[in-house]
């Protein structure tokens, strides 16, 4: 039997993390959470989570940044917005989950070979390059980067899609891709700290930074 | 306190709703801009348009009136009378070149401490953006111009005087 100490010391907290999250548009209500558990109660995926959505709210509020960003919970959120709609304090939990995902990608502290963040990043890159997403290519890229064996297992689905004409063989792209490029550069230039508050790190160039 | 210019807002609050709401804001320790000076009246119906003009003339940059919501006036309909006068006065102030943001009427019930905070903060920001109204200074300028004009006319008269025996007598230029 392997025992682990579960106590938390003050040094384990990343002070200011909760406030930082709260300063993001859409996440302001976090502080008013009463830990009622409605979010977990309605979440269809809470049954697979390591921390329930309610628990995540408590962790964020108490500055347990590492625990939160490493959790599976944020990646299991399928953005169905059920929690957001039912929360008696009108906390936009889904938006907070998005914010946490962004931070995890930024800091690169998500489980290795974990497909969801890889998908998110590949999705981002594909849009960056072509302006649109071609799903089958995206899926293939994702599996190659994480678990090529899984891709092989999916042969049946791929073939089915191909036979049914749902597997485009050319990449979808937009014509004026330079427009998107220029728009994104504007966002990058404006630095995120102008958006939120001064202490926050710039969040631009994720595609470049982690690709 | 910073040395930058601070707007001065005179507020007329009715005793029953808005003044009580401002008390509630205090009891709830809400924080808002300190630029408003509240004068308590029994009812917004007591707000004589002259009070507003007087406040502006004496150096207020804006005037805020707070009364009970429609149907909720402690005196049945004083707030309507206030609204009527307010509408007329607003037009008049516009004719005088005073920006509409400088006069505001708000219905704030005794329970709306939060609204007192919001309205005062909004109004302070709006007036700060507009800058000083400065009517007393303008009065001073006009007085000065008048004096200069008078002096000018008198000087001209003095010059003309020796050869102006037949000129028609002039009224003194005092106003």
């Amino acid at each position: 039997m392997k025992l682990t100490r579960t106590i938390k010391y003050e040094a384990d907290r990343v002070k200011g993390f909760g406030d930082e999250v709260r300063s993001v548009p859409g996440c302001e209500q976090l502080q008013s959470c009463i830990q009622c558990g409605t979010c977990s109660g309605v979440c269809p995926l809470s049954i697979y989570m390591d921390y329930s959505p309610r628990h995540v709210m408590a962790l964020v509020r108490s500055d347990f940044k590492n625990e939160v960003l490493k959790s599976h919970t944020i990646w299991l959120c399928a953005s169905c917005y059920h929690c957001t709609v039912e929360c008696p304090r009108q906390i936009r939990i889904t938006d907070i989950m998005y914010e946490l995902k962004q931070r995890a990608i930024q800091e690169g502290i998500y489980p290795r070979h974990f497909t969801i963040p890889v998908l998110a990043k590949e999705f981002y890159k594909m849009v960056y390059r072509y302006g649109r997403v071609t799903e089958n290519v995206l899926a293939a890229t994702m599996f190659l980067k994480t678990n090529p064996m899984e891709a092989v297992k999916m042969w049946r689905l791929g073939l089915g899609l191909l036979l049914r004409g749902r597997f485009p063989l050319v990449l979808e792209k937009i014509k004026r891709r330079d427009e998107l490029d220029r728009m994104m550069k504007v966002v990058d230039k404006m630095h995120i700290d102008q958006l939120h508050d001064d202490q926050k790190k710039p969040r631009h160039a994720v595609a470049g930074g982690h690709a | 306190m910073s040395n930058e210019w601070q707007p001065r807002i005179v507020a007329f609050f009715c005793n029953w709703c808005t003044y009580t709401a401002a008390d509630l804001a205090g009891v709830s320790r809400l924080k808002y801009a300190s630029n408003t000076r509240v004068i308590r009246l029994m009812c917004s119906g007591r707000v004589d348009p002259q009070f507003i003009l007087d406040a502006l003339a004496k150096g207020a940059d804006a005037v805020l009136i707070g009364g009970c919501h429609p149907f909720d006036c402690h005196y049945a309909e004083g707030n309507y009378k206030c609204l009527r006068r307010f509408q007329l006065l607003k037009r008049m102030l516009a004719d005088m070149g005073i920006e509409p943001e400088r006069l505001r009427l708000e219905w704030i019930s005794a329970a709306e401490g939060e609204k007192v905070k919001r309205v005062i903060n909004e109004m302070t920001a709006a007036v700060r953006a507009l800058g000083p109204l400065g009517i007393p200074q303008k009065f001073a300028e006009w007085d000065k111009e008048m004096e200069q004009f008078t002096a000018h006319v008198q000087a001209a008269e003095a010059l003309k005087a020796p050869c102006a025996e037949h000129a028609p007598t002039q009224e003194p230029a005092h106003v």
Partner: protein
Amino acid sequence: MTTKYSYFPGCSLKGIGRAYEESLLPVFRALDVELEELEDWNCCGATAYMAVDEVKACVLASRNLAMAEKLGHKELLAPCSACYLVLNKTKHYLEDSPSVRGVIQKALAEVDMTYSGNTPVRHPLDVMINNVGLDAIKKRVVRPLTGLKVAPYYGCQIVRPYATFDDQHDPQTMDRLMEAIGCTVVHYPLKTRCCGASLTGTLPEPGLLCSKILLEEALKRGADVIATVCPLCQFNLDGYHHNIKKRWGDFRIPTVYFTQLMGLAFGLGERELGLHRGFIPMKPLPALAPAAVGT
């Protein structure tokens, strides 16, 4: 008289969700509604993108919104639930958050675009019920789908978080629409439960379970077919039958787009409506067998 809408298909409707577009366009045409596809539209910035950068997702969406506004039709139609949500969410951010608004406006200005927030984003289901109207739809029905038992499945993102055109807990628009074309609507308590969304592709276990619960309950309620409004829902419920069977058993029930059922009722052909693109085919209905074959 023909009504015109701008039309934002979204990436899925060009790929796995082709059948949605294939059925959507003729059905609207049949109802005298013309859809004009945005020229050079880009990805809406959906779910996965939002996980990387929410502001950029909004910027992406805003380019589409700006182009729609320029196109001049009053409203923009977004059939994919994810696109519908992201476009609407961006509109909300533009209204509520001055900081996000600032970034978006700057980014748009860079490419000489503007968006004043005037083009509402609508879902085809909303337009069907509230603009076209059930009466007009009933008039167009040539082959009522009598006896077909449908489980109406709305999914999450068209009613949450912004319930703009239907009840958040018990939406009714599709129920009414299905009844109008002659179907029998079964009581389906899971009509807004999540299908597992993109998880099905990334973390099969939880994603597939979400889909399986939906399929199982539809079967238990005696449905012949599940009607959906979203390409991802359709794909999850229809495409993973084999994987679900391996884990939990056989829950075989076809999942089709609501527009495909409407098309059938309007007398359009199965192939024309993209019905052949589904993994689990619909059982031929006696009522429509003679006409459907051979078109």
